[in-house]
Every structure is written in C-alpha cells, then in structure tokens.
C-alpha cells in the first residue's frame, strides 16, 4: 500500500512582513516501510512453563444472565491461568520489547477478530499492530458491551446487540496490555497487546510459541501473563537460524 502524504509547508516570510503567507503544498511518498530480507532473518521459539501446582478448574457462574447459561454450551471454566498436565502454560503473550527501534513496519491489512460467543471473549488473548483493524463480532443472542480499559490509547466501550453488524476499531499507540471487559457480564475478560511491529505470539496450550522472520540482531524478548506478570531475557538471533527462549514462572510461594 503506497500512501501519499500531503505536507503543508507554511513559509513564513522573514521580518514579520504583513504580506499574505504562501502555502505551497508538497505531495511526498510515505516513508518507506522496513522490508525484512528473508536471507538475513531468523526466528525464536520456545516453551513456557508454570512450576507451581496446577490450578484447579474454577467454574464460572453465569446465572446472572440466563441467556448466557443457555448460550455457553457446557460448563464455563476460568481461563486466567491455563496449565496443562506437564506444567505447560498457555495464553501467555510473548513479544519483542527492545531491539526494533527505528524500524517502521507496515500495518497488516487483515483484521484481528474478537468474537463474543457463549458470553465469553474468543480469543481471550490477542495481539494487534498499531493501526490494524480490530473487528468485534457478537455471535450471541444477548447484548454485550465491550470495554477495552486502555491507559495509553483511548478508552472506550460499545454496546452490540444480538444480530448487530460487526464493528471495527483501531489502537493507535503500542500498549502492553489492554484489559478488556464486558460492561454487562462481569465474568468476561480478554487482553489485547498492541505493538508497532509484527513480532509477537500467544502461547498455545502446550506452552509453545514461535516468532518468525525476525531480522538478525540482539533483542529483549518479554512475556506477559495476566496472573503471573512479566519476565524478559536477552536473545541474539542469527540469520537462517532458530534461537530458543524458554520461560518458567515460579508458583506462588
């Protein structure tokens, strides 16, 4: 996508003359986006573990809205700390937090979708690039009111009734993380990570993640989990190779 930017150059004549200012309008190409050269790029992968005892599944009570009880097929369990039988931690947000300064990445044209389904946000955790379209869908037979409680970006909330069209929003500035709630259903939570580059991932149920096509270099890689907080480590990525970054969260002592 090639963008034209209109630049208004206000030329102020020297000496405070009363003559009208001339306002030439220059049309310039937008600054070039950083293009990753596949030959010099590498990747990072790793696994995330939780060393504490595996949390017991907590049942969510939706009785406040009987339509939600109906809409959520089966029982709903708390997903704030998802650990499998081997201690693998899903639903953690991994991202490059330092080392990409000065590089300007193109905004993807594909939207990132959050669905309100079964009175639940799906997915619970998602990443977006600044300016990328965030598409909000309501698949439920009830009204939801999605409320991203942003601190850096503008905070907003919006009602979406059953059968309403999807709506779209954007986040303009990087922000780790934006907690999202539904103003109507207190048990609905999600988290959004907004970055000005594409190097982020959400860990799968087996705790694994992968960040691909990263220019060779030294970075800080960070991880965020809603209950366990953040950690970071330094990592060097060489061309055509995969670097490993594993993380372990200790259990509460």
């Amino acid at each position: 996508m090639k963008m034209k930017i209109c630049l208004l150059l206000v030329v102020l004549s020297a000496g405070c003359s009363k003559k009208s200012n001339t306002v030439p309008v220059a049309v310039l190409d937008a600054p070039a986006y950083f293009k990753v050269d596949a030959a010099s790029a590498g990747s990072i992968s790793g696994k995330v573990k939780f060393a504490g005892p595996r949390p017991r599944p907590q049942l969510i009570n939706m009785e406040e809205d009987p339509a939600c009880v109906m809409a959520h097929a089966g029982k709903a369990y708390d997903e704030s700390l998802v650990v499998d039988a081997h201690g693998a931690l899903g639903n953690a947000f991994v991202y490059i937090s330092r080392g990409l300064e000065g590089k300007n990445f193109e905004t993807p044209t594909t939207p990132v979708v959050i669905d309100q389904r079964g009175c639940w946000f799906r997915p619970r955790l998602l990443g977006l690039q600044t300016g990328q379209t965030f598409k909000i869908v309501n698949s439920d037979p009830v009204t939801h009111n999605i409320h991203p409680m942003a601190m850096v970006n503008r905070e907003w909330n919006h009602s979406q009734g059953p059968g309403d069209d999807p709506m779209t929003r954007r986040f303009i500035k990087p922000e780790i993380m934006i907690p999202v709630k539904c103003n109507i259903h207190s048990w609905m939570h999600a988290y959004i990570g907004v970055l000005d580059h594409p190097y982020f991932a959400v860990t799968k149920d087996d705790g694994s993640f992968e960040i691909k096509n990263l220019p060779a270099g030294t970075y800080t890689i960070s991880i965020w989990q809603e209950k366990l907080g953040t950690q970071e480590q330094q990592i060097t990525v060489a061309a055509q190779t995969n670097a490993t970054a594993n993380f372990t969260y200790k259990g509460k002592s």
Partner: protein
Amino acid sequence: MFFRPWVVSMTMAAVLLIVCDGCRSHVQDKPIGQSVSIPIPLGLPPLPLPRDNPPTADAVALGRALFYDKHLSQDDSLSCSSCHNPQTYFTDGQRLSKGLGGLSLRNAPTVMNAAYLPFQFWDGRALTLEEQAASPIADPLEMNQPHNVSVKKIAANGEYKAMFVETFGSDDVTIGRIENALASFERTLLSGNSAFDRYQYGGDQTALTISQARGLAVFLDPNKGNCASCHTVRPHDALFTDGKFHNTGEGVGDLDQFSDIGRYHETKVKTDTGAFKTPTLRNVAHTAPYMHDGRLKTLKEVVDFYAGGGNSNLYLDPEMKKIHLNGTDREDLVAFMQSLTGEMPPNVGPPGKK
C-alpha cells in the same frame, strides 16, 4: 421554560416565511366556538393549551379527518396515520419510517402525549404541534407535497367545506388552518391510567406485580437504574420524559462519530452532538423498535444497552455513568416497562370508527 431569544426570533422568522408563502391570506386561523375540555387520564398533568388555537369540538373532528387523509401526500398514498398508526400506539412499528422519498432517517415516535412536550421531533426542531404538523407534509422524504397543493386538494374535497365553516367560520382552506386542526386532534391523543398509574397515583397496591414494583424502584433509584433522571416521574404525574436532549451514545459509529448529529443540528452547541430528545416510555411495550434510529429491537436490548453504560463518546451524558444494574434489576426493569401500557382514548381512530 425553554425559550431563548434567538429561538423565538427564528421561530418568528419561520412563521413569517410561511405567511409570505402566498398560500395564506388574511383569513383567521383561530377556531371559533367553545374550547372543549379534554379529559386527562390518571397519571398525566394538566394539558397546556395555546391561546390562539383552543381545541374546539369542530377543530378536533376536522383534525381527525385530516390526520387520516391521504390527500396530504403527493401521490395520495400516505396519511399521518401511515406512520402514526393507532394500532401500534401511533407509531409505525418500523425501524425507520418509509416515506415517499424512501427511508426516513429516523424512527417514528409516538404522537400520544406529544401535546405535553416542549419540543417536537428527536432534535426538537419544532416547538409546538402546530409548527410540527406542516413539516411532514412538505418533507420530500415523507409526504412530499408543497403546501399550496395540499390546500388545493383539501379545498377541492366538498366534504371538508362544512367542516371548515363550522371550525373557522369560513370555508377558506389555509395551511395554518390545517396545522391548527391537526394539532387540536393530536391534543386529544392522551394516554394514561396504566397499571403503573393505578399503583403510583391511584393507590392500588395490587396493580403492579412484585417484579414490576421492584422494577419501578430500580427505575427511580439514582444508584441503580437512574432512569428517572431523564424519564421523569413526578409526585402527581409522570410523562417519563424531561423534554430535554441527552447523549446516550446511541448512534455512535466506528470512527466515534455520529452519522445523525441530533440536537447539534439545531443549536450548533458541540456538547449537543448526538443528543436526542428523551422519548416518553408510556406504551413503550407496544412501540418497538426503539431509539431515534430504531436500532434496538426489544426492551431487553434497551435495558442491556443501559446496563453496559451505552456507548462511549466525547459527549456522553454524565447521568449514563451512574447506572448500575444486576441481572434481576434488568429483568425487573423490563417487567416494569410493560406496566406502562395505558388506555387508548375514544374517538381517535379513522373518522367514522370509534
């Protein structure tokens, strides 16, 4: 009251324009004869009556005939009642009204109890029923007929001759007389004496179900529904509207903009952007869909809209932030609004019928 000097002068200018339109001569638009007393149902306040248009029995009958007369539209297909149908409590049941110019931009509000309102239309661009009445006739989106054509068509209909003579003392048809008669008929469209009225003002403790009575309490409680801060309930009567304009966030688009700017269109005051007149809630169970854009389909959807705090935007009314509703509160509010269905007054259907 709500008069600001510039509003008055703009209104006068508008009236002058109509006067100079050529279709109005020096004939009297004020009805002759005795003003009738319009019965006020339980729960409604005394009815304000304009001095220059007292509702006489003849004016009301003439207005009723005109309200149901399709000759007031360009192709004789629409009457006022097409969009303000007595079967749906003087609304049309559509999301947006369909006029001759296609879909109108807004949902048709009920005309019942509109006689009490200090402003007409969602954005308040008319002050009185008289002033309001002529605009749908000429509106290209609605009945799309210039006033001189309406005047000619009504004058050509012999059945009206005697009615105009009886009402105004001569058979001259003017747009002013049409407006006045329509307004007088609309003043008889009063609806009260609902289960809520019998409970609240009639001393009948059994008129509301337990859930409805709880819903009333939620409605009034400033820390729960906070509904009555805009949908007014007073010690002796309730119109369920403060007659003012508020931004609930209904109609906010993807870019945080209002495609319909509402009250701002009239006042050019920034904070009026996206503000619409508080609608009455009387008979609301029968006037779906809801809001100025008809976007909300059920009362449950409306209550859930409030439970979520509406839609954020720069000009959201601060009263919206005080609403706190749990699941039971929401169910009770819906039940309560079902108790607001009032009686239909007699003689308001198409002429010749009850």
